[in-house]
């Protein structure tokens, strides 16, 4: 299920020229009392924290309670521009809400014809059979269709029809020129009820991750957050980390801060002002989990709220 992603997202990710910021934004990050519900928006956008492009699919969302057990989402829905869900914060400490997506995109040739690989795939190129890809009913992310307007006269109207993409597991053995890239996306945010905890900061050792060295729910304007970036659990030196304050619609400059991780993979971010910030990094290597994929492109993004001093 986790391999499913809207085709629009797939295309956006596959086109590095497009400034696509994906994020999960919480309604708040510091909570007091014990009867709290946080609501979250999950979207990919050109302008950070505005809903201007596509939703993040709900099937990628995972919630961890402070003790490491899975949390639940309620009131979830996906619109054309964003997904929304609530989380009842019924445990004190620091919660993690994330979107984890892995998918393989690319092309291959079959009988001299080029076919695309990606998304949930269409019907397998050969006759269906039991290996046909599962389709998810009901919760289909709206972005899957939105950026592909039907041709004039309707989707079946004139011109040669483009064949639907094929899921990676349905690539027939006789395919040639298989060119695949694995895309691994991790979006995170943290919210804290009462006293902060660090249980969930332990890296998983898989893909591109951020290990907070300063608690992200304990930073204020003028203070510094330190974090270590890791690839497969190892420090990632020389990585470019981009920090963008939200609300760029209301100012001239984007206010982007660009930093580079040191030899130990760490970076120190000094927050110029209070507000909601997007923090992201990308990395590419050849260590894809999918054996036929020559390249692995990893992206990480976190939403961090910086408090007033």
């Amino acid at each position, binding site marked *: 299920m986790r391999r499913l992603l809207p085709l629009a997202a797939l295309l956006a990710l596959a086109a590095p020229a497009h400034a696509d910021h994906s994020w999960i934004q919480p309604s708040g990050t510091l909570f007091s*009392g014990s009867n709290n519900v946080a609501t979250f928006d999950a979207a990919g956008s050109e302008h950070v924290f505005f809903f201007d492009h596509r939703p993040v699919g709900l099937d990628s969302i995972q919630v961890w309670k402070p003790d490491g057990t899975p949390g639940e989402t309620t009131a979830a829905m996906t619109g054309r521009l964003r997904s929304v869900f609530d989380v009842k914060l019924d445990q004190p400490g620091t919660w993690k809400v994330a979107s984890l997506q892995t998918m393989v995109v690319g092309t291959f040739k079959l009988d001299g014809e080029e076919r695309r690989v990606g998304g949930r795939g269409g019907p397998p190129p050969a006759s269906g059979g039991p290996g046909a890809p599962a389709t998810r009913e009901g919760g289909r992310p709206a972005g899957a269709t939105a950026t592909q307007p039907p041709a004039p006269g309707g989707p079946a109207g004139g011109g040669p029809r483009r064949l639907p993409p094929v899921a990676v597991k349905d690539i027939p053995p006789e395919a040639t020129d298989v060119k695949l890239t694995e895309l691994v996306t991790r979006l995170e945010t943290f919210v804290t009820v009462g006293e902060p905890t660090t249980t969930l900061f332990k890296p998983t050792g898989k893909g591109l991750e951020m290990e907070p060295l300063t608690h992200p729910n304990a930073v204020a304007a003028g203070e510094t957050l330190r974090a270590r970036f890791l690839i497969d659990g190892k420090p990632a030196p020389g990585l470019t980390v981009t920090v963008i304050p939200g609300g760029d619609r209301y100012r001239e400059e984007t206010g982007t801060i660009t930093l580079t991780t040191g030899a130990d993979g760490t970076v120190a971010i000094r927050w110029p002002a209070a507000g909601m910030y997007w923090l992201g990094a990308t990395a590419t290597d050849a260590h894809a989990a999918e054996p036929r994929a020559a390249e692995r492109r990893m992206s990480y993004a976190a939403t961090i709220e910086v408090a*007033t001093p």
Partner: protein
Amino acid sequence: MRTIPLVATPVLFAGLVAAPAAAGTISITLPRIPVAEYHKPYVAAWIEPAGGGAPRSLAAWYDIKKGGSEPGYKWLADLRSWWRKAGRTAKLPIDGVSGATRAPGSYTLPLPADLKPGNYVLNVEAAREGGGRELVSVPFAVGGGGRASGKSELGLVTVAAR
């Protein structure tokens, strides 16, 4: 708590409401705010060592009589700075610190009698329903004092650390 005869320091306490005797005092003035629907603010006061270190809460005024299982805890996080630095790690209510919200006026509170010599910062933060939030910081040294004024939610804040 040590008691010092009030008569010994009449000048210091002039103009302050009921100064309890201790190693020193702070005063907090909550201004009268002319709005149609006024709610008494949540207020927190705490001191921090000037060079950084553990904060020490002196007062947290919130809706401690609110019904239900949680007496006013939900909006304590609106005292943003105090909540982040001290409130969220404390077990509520805090003995000798938690108290009911107060009407506009001046209030005097004792500084901890065991305050070690050194430089500190007194922070007073106020957050009001339907209103704003303000933080006033007053650096002081034990043996001295200081004062600062808020602009909106807080009036004069003084510290006299004898």
